[in-house]
Every structure is written in structure tokens, then in C-alpha cells.
């Protein structure tokens, strides 16, 4: 029965729960083979809240997500990719160069970021939503997680490293530290994953040579 690809595809539907496969859910390749190996389901979850913890802004957290965001926005029938209250303005040429289709990108302004993030996750209009938060309450995180499940959206919350000790309802939590040409990713929480650090190299880590 499992040999039929059509049937197999149908059974991948997240609403179908099969007894012998406890942890089957739709995933999205991250674009980094070593990371995919370690992530539950071999990729980013398609829906649910994940947290990326960094000591400093700009440690490579976007580089980590860009291949996946690009693939999401390029897909047929792509939904939006929404940036909720980013600390700086995302630079459109860099996003386009990384393969993100700008037609599918929207930026939501600053006031009440957590409320806006919840609306975005819940709406079902987005494939992915990114948000930055200093100190969300556990109840707010729970709401975000439920909203992301309901809207079938990948919600990414960027938080400071100090949040690593707090409990979180996110399906996946990663810590990130910059290296010279990449980053060191630590899995802090995830279903059926082994913990430990992974070293990644960015695809275009070197600055391009001077033109002319």
C-alpha cells in the first residue's frame, strides 16, 4: 500500500495521524545539509513556532533562514512572508539576490509587535512570519504557537540568548553563534533530535571581488 506515491502523498497530510508514525509533519529543507540531518523531520517545520536565539543582532540568523524563505516565496501558489516589526529595514536588493521573491514579502510596522505577529500567524495568509521580541510572556508564546498551528505558518521568533534558560512552547529552538564564515548552531529543543552543536558555512560567505 505504501508503494503508491499518490497515496503516500495523501497520507502526508498533516491532519491525518497514523498510529505508527508519531512524528510525521510537513517540513521544508533548510538548505544546509548538516542542519537538515539533525532537524526533526529533516527540515524546518511548515507550521508552528520556532525560536532562534542569538547573543547579538546580526549573528547570521537571517542567513540561516534565507534559503528556506527563498524556496517558500518561489513556490507556486506561495503565500506571503511577513516581517513583523524588524529592528532595521530589510534591504530589498540583498533579499532579491538571495532568491527571495519580493512580491511575496510584506513588512508590518512597529507598534504592538506581538499582537501583529499573532494576527499574521493566525490569518493563514503567510507561509512564514518573522518577529523579534525581547521578553514575551509564556502565555503569549503559547498563543503564538497555537496561532501558527492554526494558520499553518512557520513562525520564527528571534530572541536574545538569555532566553535559553526559560521554558518555551516552541516546536524547535536553536541557538546561533557567529563563526568567521558561517555559524555554530545548537539545537536547544526539538522533537526526537539529539542535542549538540553543528557548524555551518554560508553559501556566499566571502565578499565578492571588486568589480572592474
Amino acid at each position, binding site marked *: 500500500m505504501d508503494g503508491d506515491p499518490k497515496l503516500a*502523498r495523501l497520507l502526508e*497530510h498533516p491532519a491525518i495521524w497514523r498510529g505508527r508514525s508519531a512524528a510525521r509533519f510537513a517540513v521544508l529543507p533548510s538548505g544546509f545539509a548538516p542542519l537538515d540531518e539533525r532537524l526533526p523531520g529533516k527540515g524546518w517545520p*511548515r*507550521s508552528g513556532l520556532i525560536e532562534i536565539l542569538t547573543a*547579538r*543582532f*546580526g*549573528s*547570521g*540568523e*537571517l*542567513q540561516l533562514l*534565507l534559503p528556506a524563505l527563498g524556496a517558500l516565496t*518561489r*513556490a*507556486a*501558489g506561495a*503565500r*506571503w512572508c*511577513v516581517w513583523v516589526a*524588524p*529592528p*532595521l*529595514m*530589510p*534591504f*530589498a*536588493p*540583498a*533579499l*532579491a*539576490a*538571495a532568491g527571495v*521573491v*519580493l*512580491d*511575496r514579502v*510584506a*513588512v*508590518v*510596522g512597529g507598534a*504592538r509587535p506581538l499582537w*501583529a505577529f499573532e*494576527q*499574521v500567524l493566525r*490569518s*493563514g*495568509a*503567510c507561509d512564514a512570519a518573522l518577529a523579534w521580541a525581547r521578553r514575551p510572556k509564556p502565555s503569549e508564546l503559547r498563543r503564538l504557537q497555537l496561532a501558527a498551528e492554526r494558520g*499553518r*505558518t512557520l513562525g520564527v521568533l528571534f530572541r536574545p540568548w538569555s532566553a535559553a534558560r526559560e521554558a518555551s512552547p516552541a516546536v524547535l529552538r536553536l541557538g546561533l*553563534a*557567529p563563526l*568567521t564564515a558561517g555559524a555554530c548552531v545548537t539545537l536547544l529543543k526539538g522533537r526526537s533530535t539529539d542535542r549538540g552543536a553543528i557548524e555551518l558555512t554560508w553559501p556566499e560567505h*566571502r*565578499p*565578492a*571581488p*571588486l*568589480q572592474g
Partner: protein
Amino acid sequence: MALLPIPAGTQPDEAQSPPAAPARRAVPLAVPVVAGASGVVAAELWAGVHLSGLAPADALLRLARRAERFTPRVSLEPPDGLLLEVRGSLHLFAGVTGLRRAVTEECRRLGLTAVLAFAPTPLAALALARAGRAHAVLEMSALVGQLAPLPLATLRWPGKICERLARCGVRTVGAALRLPRAGFARRFGTAQLAVLDALTGRSRDLRSAFRARVRFRRRRELTCELENHQVILATLAPLFAALAAFLTERQCGVVELECLLDHRHAPATRCVLRLAAPMADARRLAELLGERLERLPLPEPVRGCELRSAALVPQRPDCLHLWQPGEHGGGLSSEASGLIESLRARLGEDAIHGLAQLEGHRPEKAWGKTAPPAAAGYRAAPRRRTRSPPVMRRPLWLLPMPRSLRVRDGKPRRRGPLRLIGEPERIETGWWDGEEIARDYYTAADIHGVLLWIFREREAPHHWYLHGVFG
């Protein structure tokens, strides 16, 4: 909805069908009904209404609005004429007589006196009505004979031309029609010849259709004064129910909705809701208006409320997908515009925007804000690669303004010394618009390994600035 001109003359679909058999028209001859010898019924029948006597300025518009119940093809001929194409609706009003009675009744109700004439061309119907001849000319062959005795004044030509024609002894339409065409056009103008052609059906007469502007407007006076926003919203509920029925009836949506709250002394509070896409769901509209109202300070208690819509927009019902968005390529439908509405209602009009890449080498001018991404109608990413040839590496984050960096021993610092990586990229452009830049951009790593995009001005004193973060 675009206003299309109504072609007089044959209609394409009717032109194909064989000529209809002469119908038995038992019309009581209170007014002359003229049928020609051929018995061929013209493809169109126009009713010309001429308002005689003193009519108020907006009488014509009001009559046009009422006349839309006789035919969808109503055309205005200001200041005192109205044309209805009634061939298709004759049988619904018991023929010419019944229709005449119904239209006259409408005019009487509006307090207007009107002459009504029927003819196969619009101008002829109007000319007959203006001449005060309430005839019904049903066939093309009988038309010229009926028009001939009409005075030329019924055509409303410029006075000068009428005078010149009168000097030649031409005082009736018939006499004008008998003149040689070429000479007539040369002496009295081609415009006048075109009118004669349109009058007799020789050329098509294009008429722009009248469409009544339909808007929703409903008031509710309150028996007590209200201050609580929730209660005010609850009192608006019947108005929203009426709006829902109104929109459903017309299969239309609104893109703008205005709510007026009246006070005892202060001027009425206005609350305008602008939507990203036409919406017909009154419950959702009420929710969004509620969000707006909550943020609205009320100077005084509310005594009455009114709901007004702007122009209606035809509503296409949402196509429901088999898969929900995000499942196996299920696309976006109404979720996206719903999200925009909620964000805008709470956070303001500029709560959400899109991003666009602009042509230009200056980093500040290489991007721009756009309207939020299109909600619907998006199927797949364009196949062409937008990646321009060799792109220099750009940071994912750009500072709104370059931030000055401290310098020690000629080296830029930010929480410690910065380490420059690779070769600089020179951007020197913009001399033509007064915002010239001349900078050498470097990638730099701070002591924590965060990659920054910094530049050094080429002009003395060579300041260092932080302009982006690679993220």
C-alpha cells in the same frame, strides 16, 4: 462598471435572426400609431421623453433613475430629454400604450409634464417629443413621413444655421432631408448632415448609457445618549444588517464605509473605513469599524448614527479551494486582504507595506516601500530570474541613516576594533541630483564576529560610518 455607448441601429444578435413576423398590434388609437407598409419591425424602438414646462434641475436625473425599471438602456439628453430603448420590454408593459401610460404615471408622480414619442431612432423619438407630437412610429419605413412636417427647431441646431436654412426656404425636417447631401454638408456643415443621418437611421447613433449611482445610506436616531463604544457598536448592528441585505441584493461590495456619529453640540464625528479589497461581509465590516471606533475619542455622547457607503464595487464571490492555503499548494484567497484589514484597523493605514527593488547604485535609493503584496490572482513565481548579473554582496539589514563610527589610530571601532574583510567596493554616484555620494564600502567583522557593512567617505576628513548589518 464601464459605461458603454448604446448603438442604435441593428443589434448584432438580432441582425442574425430572420425578421420577425409582423405582430398583431391591436393598439387603441388614442394617439396615432404608425405602421409602414412593409410590416418589418425595426430592431430598436426608442421612447423619447421631453419634459415640457418648468422642470427642476435634478428632475431629469430623478426621472432617469425611475426609468431604469422600464429598460436597462436609459440615456440622458440634457437639459430636458430622456431616451429609453424599449423594444425588449414592450411586451412586459402591454405594448406601446401600456408603456406610455406607465412612463406618464412616473412623470406625474415626480410632478413633471412630459411628451412621450416612440420612434426607431433615438433622435427621431426626441424630435417628435420636442414637437409635442406624441406619436408612436414603430417601423423604419414610416419614419421619414412622420418626421417631414416637424420644424427644424426640434433638432436644436445652432440658431445661425437655422436662420440660413430659413432664408433658403427650408423650415421643416422634410425640406432639409430633400436637399442634396454634398451641397448640404458643404454649406451647413457635416455635423448637421450627421444629425440628419442619425435621425433617419442612415447611420448608427451611439448613446452613452445612464447608470444610477447606488450607495447605501441609513440613519438611526437614538432614544438616549450613548458614550460606551461597545454599546454604540451594538446600536449600529441593524444598520449593518441592512447593509448586508443591500450588498447581497446587488452582489456588490464596498471599499469605503463611513460612519457618522451625531452629538448634541459638537460637529458629528466621522469614522472612515477604507478597505484593501471590496468586502460584502457585513459582520466583518462591523468588526473592523469597531476597531476604528475604539480608538476614536468622542467629544460628547452620541445621539444618532449614520452609515454611508462610497460607490459600490461588483463583488466576485471567493472561490473556495479544495486545499486550504499552505496545503499542497492551496493558494491565497481572502485571508490576505483580511489580514491587511485587521492590521490597518488596529495599527493605522501604513501598518503594512511591501518591498521593492529600485534601480540605483546608492544603497538608500536601491529599495522602496510599495503597497502590500497582491492578495489574489497570484499563481506562481515569475520564471525569469531577477538576479542582475554580478551582484555585489549586500547586507540584509540597512540602517535608516548611516551611523557615525568612532576611530582610533585610523581604524574604525564599534564595541572594539573592527576587522576589515576583503577589498572595498566604491560607490560614487548621484552627482546629478544633489545627493552625491562618494564612499568606499567595506565588510567588517566586530570582535563578536558580527558582519557589518561600513563605509569611509572619500572626501576629507574621511569619516567612517556604519550602514548595514549582514545578519
